[in-house]
């Protein structure tokens, strides 16, 4: 949802004549919204400007963002940074996981949340 909010703000700023670049990690949400310039870093959500405590990684993403800000020739410019989160791909499957191991727990938690909202 953060990615959508920021995409809408970027669109508004551009319409007001202020150029923008988004540095983010949810490619589908940003591209669906439609933005002028986007640097996609294929990391878990939370560190779109680089790995924690890795200044070199962080600077490389910001610098790429500045290059895209300066050099994009048309809207919907997406540039993917070459940075890789880890050798393991497991984080992709783990985030918002739905499977036989947790589907009952998810349903029960959702019911409890709706019941709490109805009584509040």
């Amino acid at each position: 949802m953060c990615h959508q909010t920021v995409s809408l703000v970027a669109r508004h700023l551009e319409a007001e004549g202020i150029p923008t670049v988004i540095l983010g990690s949810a490619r589908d949400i940003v591209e669906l919204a439609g933005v002028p310039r986007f640097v996609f870093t294929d990391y878990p959500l939370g560190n779109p400007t680089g790995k924690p405590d890795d200044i070199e990684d962080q600077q490389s993403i910001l610098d790429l963002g500045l290059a895209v800000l300066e050099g994009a020739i048309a809207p919907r410019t997406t540039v993917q940074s070459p940075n890789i989160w880890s050798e393991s791909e497991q984080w992709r499957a783990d985030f918002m996981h739905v499977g036989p191991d947790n589907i009952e727990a998810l349903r029960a938690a959702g019911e409890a949340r709706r019941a709490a909202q109805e009584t509040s």
Partner: protein
Amino acid sequence: MTAANADTAHRTFVSYIDKSREYYEASGYDRPYRWAHHNDVPFARLDRPLAESTVAVVTTSFIFNPATDDGDDGGLMVRADKEVYAAPSSPTPERMFTMDLSWDKGATHTDDVGSFLPLDALGRAAEAGRIGAVAPRYFGVPTQYSQRRSGLDAEVIAGWCRDDGVDAVVLVPL
């Protein structure tokens, strides 16, 4: 380094639209969220060289309040009073409030603000002459389901950008 075990029979990047729809459907929510979608995209160009431009940052993180924001409860903390804000770009805040946002709390953390709020990196770009200056303030915007409310927040930020002589903006969602 390569991600050696990528399953290239599928697209490699995560579809958060698919993931969240399936997750909330499994949680018993039967009306999927309708994401913003536009075919037309505005496009503004820099008025002056980047090396002479003042650049601002927009974040979805919020100013950390140690009185209320300490603790790690896995994202259950909710702030009902979040409003669009402006804060000084220097000194860089040591910590930001992010726990109510939907980032991947299983895979990473947000203890280093440089991983999502690039004020120090932008400062280094200014020192190197790559940009003219870091804008005096950065701006925070609440994450909204309401696309209309995000539009209203954007109008406020555009006004602040004009006040601060901002030439370009780097936006960073969590």
